[in-house]
Structure formats: C-alpha cells, structure tokens
C-alpha cells in the first residue's frame, strides 16, 4: 500500500537516527535552506580534499522525508568527487520528477543496488506535495557546492 511505500523502514531509520548530524568547525563550503511553505530547514557543511568531499555535516529540522533524504544524501556523497555528486544529484532529481521518466535501471528485486538507501525515497513520487521535502537537502547541497 502507498503509505507503507512512503514510510519505509529505512526512511524512518534515517529520520530517527540522522547520519552525519552536526556542524563542521571550519567548513570549506556551507549553505542553509528553508522550505518557506512548510518551514523545514537544512544546513550543510562540507570539507574537500581537492575535488572530493571528505566530510559532511547536516543540521536540520522537519518532516521524516526531508530529514531522511538529507541524511541519506550525506552518506551518498561522502568520498565522492564533484562530478560524481553532480551525476548523483541528477539521478535523484529524475527519480523525484513526475514528468521525466528516465530509466535509472533500479532493480525492484535488488533494492538499493543502484542508489543505495536513497532508492527508498521512490515512494515520495506518489505524493507530489512531498517531493519538495525530499528535494530540500539536495537543493541546499547544490548551493553549498556552488558557493
């Protein structure tokens, strides 16, 4: 059923136990974003080694979708280069897009095999009004990367 699809165990786990929570003392990049319609907030701190993200920390508050999405994102980008993150972001965005129907090659038999935990957010697409919750962390990430 759809709601079970939205609130999968892995999402609730990230919501309750957000990974990489906190601040970085002197980050190489940082950004803050608010979803003005619901008030959810995300702050991201990053450090780099050359092009590679070495550390990431997120301070946030909001619903299970925005919080778990931000938490999953931190796990997914650590140790990745800027261009790898860009490609990941695009995959995430098309997973969240109602219009686009890019085949990301997700395998229902082997969940997580392509995008890791992030795949669990697929169910959000059935709730268009919640898509911006899932996007919030990624939008703030993009801002941090371009800052």
């Amino acid at each position: 059923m759809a709601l079970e699809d939205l609130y999968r165990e892995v999402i609730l786990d990230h919501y309750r136990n957000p990974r990489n929570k906190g601040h970085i003392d002197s980050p190489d990049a940082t950004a803050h974003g608010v979803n003005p319609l619901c008030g959810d907030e995300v702050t991201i701190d990053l450090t780099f080694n050359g092009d590679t993200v070495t550390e990431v920390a997120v301070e946030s508050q909001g619903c299970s979708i925005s919080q778990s999405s931000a938490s999953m994102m931190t796990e997914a980008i650590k140790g990745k280069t800027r261009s790898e993150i860009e490609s990941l972001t695009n995959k995430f965005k098309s997973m969240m897009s109602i219009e686009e129907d890019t085949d990301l090659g997700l395998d229902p038999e082997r969940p997580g095999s392509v995008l890791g935990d992030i795949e669990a957010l697929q169910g959000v697409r059935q709730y268009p009004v919640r898509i911006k919750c899932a996007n919030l962390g990624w939008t703030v990430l993009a801002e941090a990367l371009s800052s």
Partner: protein
Amino acid sequence: MTDLSHLKADFPVLENGVHFLDSGASSQKPIPVLEAMDRFARTSYANVHRGAYKLSVASTEAYEAARRRVAEFIGADNPSEVIFVRGTTTALNTVAFGWGLENLQEGDRILSTEIEHHANLVPWQMVAKRTGATLDHIPMTDDFRLDMEAYESMIGPDVKIVTVTGMSNVLGTMPPVRQIADIAHRHGARVVVDAAQLVPHVRVNVSDLGADFLAFSSHKMLGPTGIGVLWGRMDALEETEPFEGGGEMISDVTLQSATWAEIPHRFEAGTPPIIEAVGFHAAIDYLESIGMEKIFEHDMELTEIALQRVGDVPGVSIQGPNNTIDRGGVVSMTMEGVHAHDLATILDEGGVAVRAGHHCAKPLMNRMGVAATARASFYVYNTEQDIDALVTGLRRARELFGMS
C-alpha cells in the same frame, strides 16, 4: 448534540467523502452562496457608484445592501463604518498604515501579542520601523492564554494602540477582548481586533466587543474569496488616512492634490469586489438561517469530543487549551516522533484534510517550542464522524511509524 448534518448537501465539494477539517484556513461555499453570485452576474452586474443607468443602479443597490447586511450582522449602527476590502490581511494593513503612520511616532508603543497571525504582526513591524514606534508583545501563559497580568503591567500612556486576535488560529484561544479594550481605552489607546477566526464562529456585536477596529474575511465564513471587512468606529476611521489612492475615493482632484470622499468611500479606492459582496451577503444570510449561537454550540460540541478522543491517542499533545472555556473550534496537535507534515499526509490518505505547519504564526511556534502542528478546525458541515476519521488517521500514523 446539535445536528447540522442536513447542511452537508449544500456543500457539493464534500460529496466525495472528504473529512474537511481545515475551515480555519478557508471554509467551503454552500450552493446558495454560489447561486447568488451566479444569478447576480447573469442579471444585474455593472460597475457600482458610477452609472446612471438601470444595471448600474441595481448593482450599486446590491453592493450597498451587502454593506448594510454586514453592519447588521456585527451590530454596527452605521453601515458607513463597514469598509469592504480584499480580506483580513488588507484590513489590518489599512489600520496599521492608515492609522499608524498618521498617529504614531518615536516613543510611542504598539502592543500586540505573542499569539498573533503574521497578518496582525508583520504590518505593525513595518509601521514601527517607519515611525520609530516600539512594538511589544503581551506574552502567553503556559496554559495557552493571554497573560493579562503582564498586559496590565505593559500598558501605559505611551501605548497608542493595542492589537489582538479575537481567536487564535492555532490555539483556539479567545482572549478577553472586552477587558483588554476597556483597559486600553482607560489609557487612551485604540484597540484593533483580528477577528478572522472570531466573526465566522461567534456572534459578535461591535458595541459589546469594545474594539475600535475589527477585521475579518468572507472566505472563512462560507463566503467567496476576494472580499473581507474592516469595520471601524466612526471616530477611529476619521483618524485614519486612506491606504490606497484612486478612483471613487476622492471628493476632488487636481493635478497636484486630492481631497477625500466621505467614509466609507475614501477607503474603497477603485472597483470593489462587487460580485463577491453579493456572495458575502448570501453567506451571512446562510449563517443567520442556522443561527450564530447554534453554530458556536456545534463547534464547541465537536471541540469537546475532539479534545477527548484526540487527547486519548498515545503520544499526542494538544497545543492549546484542553477545555472548552473561552476557546473556539480549532484543535492543534503534535505527535511525539511524527512530524506534523507526515501526520497531514497520512490523514489525507484517509480523506481527512487538516493543515500542518506554522499556521502563519512562527513566533507562537517558537514560544511553544514546536516547529509545526497539525490543526483540525471545525465548521457547520463537520460531524462527529470527521473526528472519528481524524482519530483513526492518528492511530494509523503511529502504526506506520512503528509505535503502536
């Protein structure tokens, strides 16, 4: 139990079985209101106050009849004290800018409260900034009431205006407006009441209420969007400058200056919401055909049930008075471990429409230490079944979040 379930047939939008518990944001519109507007547009529409021809006369008469109906509804002796504006927000901005810029200066204080909607907060911040006046806020007690002791210690001769909600759109709390007004008046301050939630649910008589200005919206009381009311006591309106300049609000205009028309026209620049006034009139007729006393009684019965049954769901906290004393039919809640937006989504799947978020009252949210609440608000078309559906949804949320 006050049974108004026969009214449901007048609200086609509810036919698909939705449990609509978001009337605090905006109410649905009954068929008689929709038909009144449609009929008017098909038979009598023209611009008002302008033409000598029959359609324009009919249209003007309908518009002015709506003004008289509103005046009667809120117990105002003089229909000229009723100004049609776009809604509560515009009404409050009209007072803040029209009265505030004229009558406030450095050293003066504006007294508002911690529990206001942004509409009764942001305009005063803007006006305080422009005039140099100070903006202070009457605090809330821990049981979600206005702290009247604090108020008495805050009021003084430097307070020029006190602005307070008639009913909190988050808590349901109804501050003692009459008492607040009497104290303010004793200190020579004007009193503004944001009655966006009050007038739709409680019989208001402006002479009893004691306020100098009253603001409310049609769309929250079964009427159309696009229209609302600023009522002002005549002497208070006389102290107020027009908020907008334009046609129909002038007595004379030269290239360099203008003189204002009589009240209320000086506050109604341009073409007003004419068809909306006709719909608003029909909405008041509809409300009165039920009776405001019965409406409030019905609200309170549902609130009583909701406070009990919602309060019984494990992990749920009611954010607002947990009894029906001096409160309206607005029940905000939070659930331990489940964010309000998740609650709203889960409830929506069960056909229950509630609003989740900060409800345009961020300072109040900060005061309560919550980021968001889910809010159920009641009106004439709601029934006990809507509350049962709400409670079912709340239990389902706990289940989904693995807490049952």
